[in-house]
């Protein structure tokens, strides 16, 4: 056991820190650090800047742009991005469909999609959730029926994050209704400009439009856009959902948000109760970060560590707790949520209520905290 980073890792971290703060535009990073919304263009610009440095998709196979890093290095890369306010490369591209195509895709699919996916030339959306399925993904109803070489897709997806920006969508569809429900699912790649694809943004309680409903009406998809084998979609979905080990919990960003609060709400730090609340959160975040490091240090070869669920569960709770503290520190100024920038209320204070509301999603999306508890009690504790 030893606390210090090796010389190599220290240099690695310094290089990350340097690159992130010099290659990604300050304005984009300020937007992230201040908790404002990024435009599509900013997200693309940032990812392309990273990709130019080889830092957009380091966990991909080397031949498709990946770096042969250790898990610790990936962790440092991820943490340093958050510290510097660099937008994390679009998860749908970098963490989801990219690795899936690299693992399950045909050579043709790899050639066609991977480079553009890394560079965010294609913006991918995720078409998994459905209105009546919720956490029960396997009960999905969107169908793809074989017609010649093509598949004809009908159905509805929902909670498609940033789907309004999407060029392509990777979907789970039911290609066989005769077999056990998991076995009848396949993954299709669908061009969102195809006739019959319709996207409707859903307004969330913070006033933002982050998720969408996506309808498919007789959408005709060429057969070569099915990933892997027909009926292999469930395996891919499990691969994809289990693929997270590094960066499960947004520790760096939450630490940064808490530290920033100490500056923005400095006038309230005379209050011992405020100080105690911050101290408690700092400690909880430290414990979480150290746990992330332990997971990284223990992980072996691509197998997801079950403690990932611990990171997700506690990480979202702390992210939410910091947003509650921010709201309480803002007080009445937080009412000016939707005031324009000429408001006499400070920007950080105005953003606290929408941020608080928005982050309620953190414990719901991507495997709710109930699902995480289920995983811990079953997989780890054997209950």
């Amino acid at each position, binding site marked *: 056991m030893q606390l210090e980073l090796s010389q190599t890792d220290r240099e690695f971290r310094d290089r990350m820190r340097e690159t992130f703060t010099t290659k990604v535009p300050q304005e984009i990073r300020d937007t992230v650090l201040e908790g404002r919304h990024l435009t599509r263009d900013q997200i693309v610009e940032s990812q392309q800047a990273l990709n130019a440095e080889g830092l957009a998709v380091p966990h991909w196979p080397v031949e498709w742009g990946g770096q042969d890093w250790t898990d610790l290095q990936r962790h440092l890369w991820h943490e340093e991005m958050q510290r510097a306010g660099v937008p994390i490369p679009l998860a749908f591209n970098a963490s989801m469909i990219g690795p899936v195509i690299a693992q399950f895709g045909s050579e043709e699919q790899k050639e066609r999609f991977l480079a553009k996916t890394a560079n965010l030339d294609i913006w991918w959306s995720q078409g998994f959730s459905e209105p009546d399925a*919720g956490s029960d993904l396997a009960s999905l109803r969107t169908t793809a029926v074989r017609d010649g070489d093509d598949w004809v897709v009908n159905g509805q997806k929902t909670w498609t994050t940033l789907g309004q920006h999407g060029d392509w969508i990777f979907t789970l569809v039911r290609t066989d209704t005769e077999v056990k429900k998991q076995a009848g699912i396949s993954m299709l790649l669908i061009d969102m400009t195809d006739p019959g694809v319709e996207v409707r943004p859903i307004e*969330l309680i913070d006033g933002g439009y982050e998720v969408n409903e996506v309808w498919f009406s007789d959408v005709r998809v060429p057969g070569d856009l099915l990933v892997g084998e027909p009926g292999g979609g469930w395996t891919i979905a499990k691969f994809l959902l289990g693929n997270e080990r590094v960066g499960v919990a947004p520790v760096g960003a939450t630490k940064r948000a808490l530290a920033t609060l100490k500056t923005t709400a400095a006038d309230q730090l005379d209050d011992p109760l405020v100080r105690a609340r911050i101290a408690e959160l700092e400690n909880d975040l430290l414990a979480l970060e150290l746990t992330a490091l332990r997971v990284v240090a223990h992980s072996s070869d691509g197998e997801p560590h079950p403690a990932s669920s611990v990171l997700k569960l506690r990480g979202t709770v702390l992210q939410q707790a910091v947003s509650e503290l921010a709201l309480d520190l803002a*007080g009445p100024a937080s009412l000016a949520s939707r005031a324009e920038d000429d408001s*006499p209320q400070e920007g950080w204070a105005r953003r606290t209520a929408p941020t608080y509301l928005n982050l309620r999603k953190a414990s*719901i999306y991507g495997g709710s905290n109930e699902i995480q508890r289920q995983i811990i009690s079953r997989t780890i504790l054997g209950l």
Partner: protein
Amino acid sequence: MDFTYDDEQQALREAVRGLLATTYADHETRRRTVADEPGFDRALWGRLAEMGILGLPFSEDDGGVGAGPVEIGIVCQELGRVLAPEPFLASVVHAGGLVASLGLAEQRADLLGRLSAGEVVLAAADTSPGGRWASRADGVRASVSDGTWTLDGVADPVVGGESADVLVVTAALPDGGTGVFVVAADDVSRTGYAAADLTRAASVTFDGSAATPLGEAGRDAGPSIATISDLTRIMGANQALGVMQSQVRATTDYLKSRKQFGVTLNAFQALTFRAADMYVELELAHSMVDWATMTIAGGDRDVVADAADRVGLQIARSGRHIGQEAIQLHGGIGMTAEYAVGVGTAHLEVLDQWLGNGPHHLRRLAERVTDHDLVEAI
């Protein structure tokens, strides 16, 4: 000692509930209403005036109905249940309360009479940008010259201030202390905005704005301002209680009807136990709200101030618990603006941050902890 409504109070509740149901039975109507100017339903406001609701707290001499705090609390609870955006709390309870408490007889008769009749909407401007629940004004200064008063400075947030006709403004007096002034909305510049729950507030700038002292000119109104804030806090807690009741009911209904993995969600014990914990918080909050509301009748300022802190802390705790769990147990649908539950969570936060949040009330209670032996309920 009695925690039950009498027949008249029951009837009032049914009447208000019935009226509000005609407008806000469906959350979509609320959504459309807040999206348009003035952010509430003027027709409904008029019907509330006709029913005497807008004059409920004021004496008959002032053009009101002279009802008690329990009745006002009932109205607030019903407004909360449907997340009604009508500015009853801001206009009638808060601004109207200041007028009733401080105004001269003719001021009361004029302003409260017209308020009760639905002819004017008032709003209280008592918070400076960055300010935190102070009864001492620091964002707006009053000056007097030849007996004419003017105001300068900024108040923000002024809840309900975007569409108010008359502002009731707290301002620092030239010789110290805080005065309360009546200012016509035409004499200020204001920028309206929506809060997180889509109710409206405004930033109001006074720039030599003509002002009429409420009550005796130049006299410090600090204690009265504080008491009206306390009363508003308690009525805001009533409104929050209504929100929480709706959230618990909606969550329970959802667990009974929503299917996942082939069964309804109430087959999952971890979820039903959490619903039970929500109910516990709701009942505790309900008790505290009823109690705080009843303390008002005693007329003792210190008792009411203490009750406001106590119910404020309780509502902050219960409101966060219920508001957060309501969204969590609904899952994705709870995050959407189309669905009332998540908007209710926003409304709970807006009420707390406007009227006094948990840490604020806790701090005040902590300061007083050695002033008593036991906390006496009755």
